[in-house]
């Protein structure tokens, strides 16, 4: 039964991928990308990778759709006709790569093989010792935040770097105030029902983000997902009530500071254990018993991740939409002259 559903979902994935690559309408392809994430998250659920499914749901289907849409406002909706290239050359390259990949699969272990190398070395240790060494029920969180804390630190820094990159490319253009900005950025005012329902929904979403943040020790969830959900709620508000209203609360300086603060919290926890005579990010020194210390460490680290992720998502969204407004005004002024 499970096998049947697996094959079915994989078939849907292939069909969606073909549809995405064949359409020239970027709007349709963004929607289909969202569909692709929905299907792959359902597939991850079937594979019992609950945390990955959670991330895919929040990041793939939610925030990346929103960010790509706001990016598309800058690029335009239709893909231009590609230049003529040599089709034969492309075919040869693709075929050679495909054959090499197929050849590579011969060496990989079978599907569901419990004696493959990945199951034989570290995984048994994590699965059997996690409860006594770390003391939290969700092994994924203990691997992510404690055993592999250094990797996760790297990932958080990568997210911060992405935010800085967007700011460096688009964020520091000279700012000009415009009068007709308000009429442009709050176009949802005639959707009364939508506004009321969103007002009802945003507080529970924020609360749910906090639940995801602090429940990560026990069930699926953690800083990455919580940060994304939090940012999605703010973006929902900004989309319906106007970006400038949301920016009055989440000021540019504040979110830039918060993005760096998350990484700072993470790094300070590492330095603290470093200075107490243990390895970098070894949380057992943070409290009187090692297990208790691990709890503290994981909570602090996840909080740092959550803050950075939420702040960077907001930075990217706000920077894109500010850019759109600016280009809008420039275009109009050029036309007037």
């Amino acid at each position: 039964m499970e096998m049947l559903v697996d094959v079915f979902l994989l078939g849907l994935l292939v069909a969606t991928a073909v549809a995405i690559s064949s359409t020239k309408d970027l709007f349709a392809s963004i929607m289909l990308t969202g569909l692709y994430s929905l299907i792959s998250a359902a597939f991850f659920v079937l594979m019992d990778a609950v945390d990955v499914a959670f991330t895919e749901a929040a990041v793939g289907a939610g925030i990346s759709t929103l960010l790509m849409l706001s990016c598309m406002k800058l690029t335009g909706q239709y893909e231009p006709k590609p230049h003529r290239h040599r089709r034969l050359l492309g075919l040869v390259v693709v075929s050679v790569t495909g054959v090499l990949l197929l050849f590579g699969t011969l060496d990989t272990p079978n599907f569901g093989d419990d004696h493959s190398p990945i199951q034989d070395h570290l995984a048994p240790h994590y699965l059997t010792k996690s409860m006594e060494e770390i003391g939290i029920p969700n092994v994924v969180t203990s691997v992510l935040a404690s055993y592999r804390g250094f990797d996760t630190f790297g990932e958080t820094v990568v997210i911060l770097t992405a935010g800085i990159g967007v700011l460096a490319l688009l964020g520091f253009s000279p700012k000009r105030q415009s009068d007709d900005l308000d009429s442009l950025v709050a176009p949802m005012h005639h959707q009364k029902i939508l506004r009321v329902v969103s007002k009802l929904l945003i507080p529970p979403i924020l609360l749910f983000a906090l639940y995801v943040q602090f429940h990560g020790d026990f069930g699926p969830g953690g800083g990455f997902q919580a940060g994304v959900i939090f940012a999605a709620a703010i973006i929902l508000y900004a989309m319906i009530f106007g970006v400038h209203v949301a920016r009055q609360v989440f000021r540019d300086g504040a979110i830039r500071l918060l993005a760096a603060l998350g990484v700072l919290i993470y790094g300070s926890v590492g330095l603290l254990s470093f200075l107490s005579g243990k390895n970098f990010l070894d949380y057992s020194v943070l409290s009187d018993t090692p297990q208790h210390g691990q709890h503290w460490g994981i909570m602090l680290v996840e909080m740092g991740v959550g803050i950075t992720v939420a702040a960077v998502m907001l930075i990217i969204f706000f920077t894109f939409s500010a850019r759109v407004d600016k280009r809008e005004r420039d275009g109009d002024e050029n036309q007037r002259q």
Partner: protein
Amino acid sequence: MSGLTGLIDLLSWLALVAGSFCALSGGVGLLRFPDFFSRMHAAGVMDTLGAGLILFGLMLQSDHWLVLVKLLLILKLIWLTSPTSSHALAKAAIRGGARPLLGDDMPGRGKR
């Protein structure tokens, strides 16, 4: 006691089957109906009813109060968001210039 559990099981199965039927007919309607607004009608109505029935069937099977609460939350969310997004979509479509097919415009039915 076993009679009661049997009854609850029967009820939940009935709800699941009815919900599945609603979901499927909504899907058929979405694919087969001639214009956007009738498709939206099929999708919106059957979505809400089917989701309600399926989640109700699951609720009868839940063995822990937390599971029940989560199912209720999902149900409440779907009942809140699904009609809202349908309404917003229909309004956007009207403003964007889409008009429903009426009477004689229907394909497969010649002008009378």
